[in-house]
């Protein structure tokens, strides 16, 4: 299926769930956060789409005024077609349904995105940090992140771009 056909197939089924966003690239489709689990289930199980492989989950911080986003790269082994699903989250309470039980690889992908962006995947059975220590403060890949001053008594020196060591 071509990208156009995939998008049409999705909008036939979920007319109200697809959000029109002109900033997106051709291979991306934005979906409402609250409908994501139903759409994902359909994308996996529909015999014509058959997205049986989740290639990657990425978090994106679009800046202070913009939302946080989760991008899902989906691929079909059967038809060799791909699409990228985009979900936007409210910056103050980023939350979306977990697809960990649809694609099992989503388990670690979601934990990583949670670790770096603090996006909560509701329904994930083991949502812990995966790379940072459990008692880490803050979400490192957010634009407004500021590193903590000390970690277990180890002072983390702050380094400014122009002045060097503080």
């Amino acid at each position, binding site marked *: 299926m071509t990208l156009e056909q995939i998008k049409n197939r999705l909008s036939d089924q979920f007319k109200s769930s697809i959000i029109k966003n002109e900033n997106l690239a051709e291979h991306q489709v934005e979906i409402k956060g609250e409908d994501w689990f139903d759409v994902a289930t359909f994308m996996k199980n529909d015999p014509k789409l058959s997205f049986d492989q989740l290639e990657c989950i990425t978090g994106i911080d679009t800046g202070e005024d913009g939302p946080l986003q989760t991008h899902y790269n989906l691929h079909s082994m059967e038809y060799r077609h791909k699409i990228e699903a985009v979900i936007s989250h409210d910056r103050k309470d980023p939350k979306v349904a977990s697809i960990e039980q649809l694609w099992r690889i989503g388990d670690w992908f979601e934990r990583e995105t949670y670790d770096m962006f603090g996006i909560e995947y509701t329904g994930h059975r083991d949502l812990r940090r995966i790379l940072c*220590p459990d008692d880490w403060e803050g979400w490192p890949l957010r634009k407004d992140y500021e590193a903590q001053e000390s*970690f277990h008594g*180890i002072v*983390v020196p702050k380094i400014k771009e122009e002045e060097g060591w503080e």
Partner: protein
Amino acid sequence: MGLLENKFQDNVVVASLDKILGWARSTSPWYFQFGLACCAIEMMASAASRHDLERIGMMPRSSPRQADVMIVAGTVTLKMALRVKKLYEQMADPKYVISMGSCATSGGPYWQHGYHVLKGVDLVVPVDVYVPGCPPRPEALIEGLLKLQETIQTERPLTRKLA
């Protein structure tokens, strides 16, 4: 050694116990085998057949209890820093630390934006020898090790220090 000179056969060497201890220790510092990043590859290359660390008496040990030298080979993240400290504390005295490469010495390429990287392993454990490089070649590491051996040799463990 005035009194003892020529009193024994030719194959007997007379020296102070301190010196013998220093010599024995300095020529067999077993190192703690663990790598944290790409420097570990160079450390492995130093131990492999071409450079062969065992010819200077160094041999990898997998337990901190059996090791004398800890080679911190690579980037120390804050998460790992706690473990490095714990491993150092588990080593038996006398113990030495070599900071290998710029990451372990100062944070290296992560010194500015690496929020998760410890800016120098000397913030956590005392370091005896710093080996610069990114990563240092085996020759550089071996020079560092020989420098460490020199230091160990000059130690006098049995002599009382003046207060």
